[in-house]
């Protein structure tokens, strides 16, 4: 970097720092507003279906959005992200069943376990690129899945964790009450999304985009690419694990399917539906995916066929996710109006 460039760079950095704070406040306010709206929903609509739907949205939404941190922001197409979803569900479920610690302790401990596992797996995987990365993550996923299946004395094998997950109440929150579980899931979703949004908007987030676009260039300007990739791999794993915990609470158990490759596949599918170029794309994809899944399975046994056609439509017809399409269309309209004016 020449001195001239360095001089030019400094004011630009200052500007972004000044802008960052109001933006962060604005995001926090939006998040708070969304949480309040979600928390008030049960008072307006008494439908239990809606509560179940939002809880599942929280689990899948955190999972899919965290996957997008890897796929969309860093260019790491992980085919094994489901392992952390499963790890969260099993870690939390086992902790509650075997040790009887309070829920917040189990929650933090589960994240700590996920952190450790993701650090080891990530350290090996993120050295690789593209298809090699995809396949090694898939291999680790199958390793974890097989471990769950064969460690019957601990995990219950393919029957899953049986007997329900005990939920002692804490701080006046009783998660065996469905309404409390709903509000808790909403809170976790909103906080999770807010944190991930901050990560994506931070200088670190921009470093990730740079690595995605040109990793060699990034390393030439002094970025430790391996460390940045590992950091985001571990962070994404933590959010996926939180999604798994919500799912474990919802079904009151944990099943090997959570850590199977089909779970990762659904994550990729959701990202394709919603689009990977916007932060909220995967969240839109999640809602779309769950609505599609729930209505189509209600109407026909041939849901595979319908979902297949939908994904073909997005892949070949739109060639992008729904949010990407909407944003582009909106931008075009605005430009068009600007030209007319």
């Amino acid at each position: 970097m020449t001195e001239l460039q360095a001089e030019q760079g400094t004011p630009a950095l200052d500007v972004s720092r000044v802008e960052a704070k109001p933006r962060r406040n604005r995001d926090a306010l939006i998040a708070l507003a969304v949480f309040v709206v979600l928390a008030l929903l049960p008072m307006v609509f008494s439908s239990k279906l809606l509560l179940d739907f939002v809880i599942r949205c929280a689990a899948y939404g955190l999972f899919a959005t965290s996957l997008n941190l890897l796929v969309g922001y860093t260019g790491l197409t992980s085919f094994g992200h489901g392992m952390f979803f499963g790890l969260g569900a099993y870690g939390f479920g086992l902790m509650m069943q075997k040790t009887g610690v309070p829920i917040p302790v189990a929650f933090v401990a589960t994240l700590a376990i996920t952190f450790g596992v993701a650090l080891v797996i990530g350290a090996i995987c993120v050295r690789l690129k593209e298809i090699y990365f995809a396949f090694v993550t898939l291999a680790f996923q199958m390793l974890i899945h097989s471990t769950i299946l064969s460690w019957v004395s601990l995990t219950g094998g393919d029957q899953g964790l049986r007997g329900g997950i005990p939920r002692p109440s804490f701080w006046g929150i009783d998660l065996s009450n469905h309404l409390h579980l709903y509000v808790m899931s909403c809170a976790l979703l909103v906080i999770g999304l807010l944190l991930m949004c901050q990560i994506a908007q931070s200088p670190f987030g921009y470093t990730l985009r740079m690595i995605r676009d040109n990793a060699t260039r990034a390393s030439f300007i002094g970025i430790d690419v391996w460390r940045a990739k590992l950091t985001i791999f571990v962070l994404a794993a933590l959010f996926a694990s939180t999604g798994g915990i919500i799912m474990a609470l919802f079904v009151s158990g944990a099943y090997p399917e959570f850590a199977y490759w089909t779970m990762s596949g659904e994550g990729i599918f959701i990202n394709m539906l919603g689009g990977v170029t916007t932060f909220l794309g995967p969240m839109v994809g999640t809602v779309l995916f769950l609505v599609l899944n729930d209505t189509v399975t209600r109407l026909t046994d041939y849901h595979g066929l319908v979902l297949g056609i939908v994904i073909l439509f997005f892949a070949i017809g739109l060639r992008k996710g729904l949010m990407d399409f909407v944003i582009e269309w909106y931008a075009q309209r605005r430009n068009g109006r600007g030209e007319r004016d």
Partner: protein
Amino acid sequence: MTRTRKPGVSRRATLAMMGAGAVTFATPWVGRAQAKTIKIGMPTILSGRVAQLGTSSRNAVMLEIAKVNAAGGLAGRTIEMVIRDSKGQPQEAARVARELVNTDGCEILIDAEASSGAFAVHEVARDLGVLCIHTNSETSALTADPKQHIPNAFRTARQGVHDSIVGGSYAAAIAKAKGLKKWATCSPDYAYGRDTTAEYVTYLKRFAPDVEIISESWPKLFQPDYTEVVTKILQAKPQALYSCLWGGDLTSYIDQANIYALFSQMEVFAVNMADYTALTVVKNLPKGIHSGNRYIKTYPATPENAAWGDAYKAKYNEYPTNWSWENATAIMLLAEASKKANSADGKKVAEALRGLKIKSPFGADGTVTMRAEDQTLVGYAIGWGTTIPQEPYVPQVQAGDWKTIFELEAEWKKSKGYA
């Protein structure tokens, strides 16, 4: 005289509105209490590799529902089935079960899920308190483990431990008579395969202590090629082979083992052979394979059972499966229990179900019983026989003895810490 109308709402209108309001609010409850139909929800697997589980369960249920409805339904209420696919995913099974109860208004659940899905639906039943009958899960722990026990969940499927006791004692008698000491096992590599094989071997050794297992094979579930498994067994030269492969896996295995003439070199005990899903699909069914009965219309050899099998075949153009009789039994029990309770209310029906004994085409002595202590089905037809290549496939079935089953089951429960 002129009438003056005061402005505002008249007393008559107020009364009418109040009345209308009361009716509006009360109607759903009155309507619900006296609804002519009762909805029964059924999450099951209707797609993927084990879709036959769902379709043959559904067929049997619909066959029986038609009869119950023709006879007036459940305590005068016509049954409407709501059947949905869970794709074999436990989280979907849980979601579908919740949706069926919370949104579709189902008052009873028939849980026709396999293995882990059944445990997921069990948790939903625990949470919502709805009457739930498990019809396909044979995992013993579902009802044997007191931790799983909830008053509103029942099981009308056979149970792994019952099969192992009967299979073990039958095999031991033959092992003693023919001097079969060296045994091999070949079972699918998942909980059902591992558990069932371990239990079977335990009881085999208990009745015939000098038996030894010289070779174990654990092919993957849905494995297409069994060549290495077959050659491994042939090289070990056992005198007898036990397998709990089922469905398509079993038929592929037999077709491939036939090429190596495996069945002429050892006695084969395949617990899941005597089910039409396997019997009618194998290309050359070898003579003399020992099998437990799953469902065949010739055992129990009663006119009622034959008639039921034929009625099913006439309606659906295929033979019923093991899952079919288990699901049919659930509906038969529900119908009897609601008659006894004179109500279709879940709690009252559950009360009536406990200890209920009904006439059944699938009973060992023409009856089956919903055992009160662990709310699982006992007294169903259970036995072993040998195959022939054409109908009736398993001409003579040696019945298992329920007295022995009860004794050994109690012992097994103690050893597991369940009792």
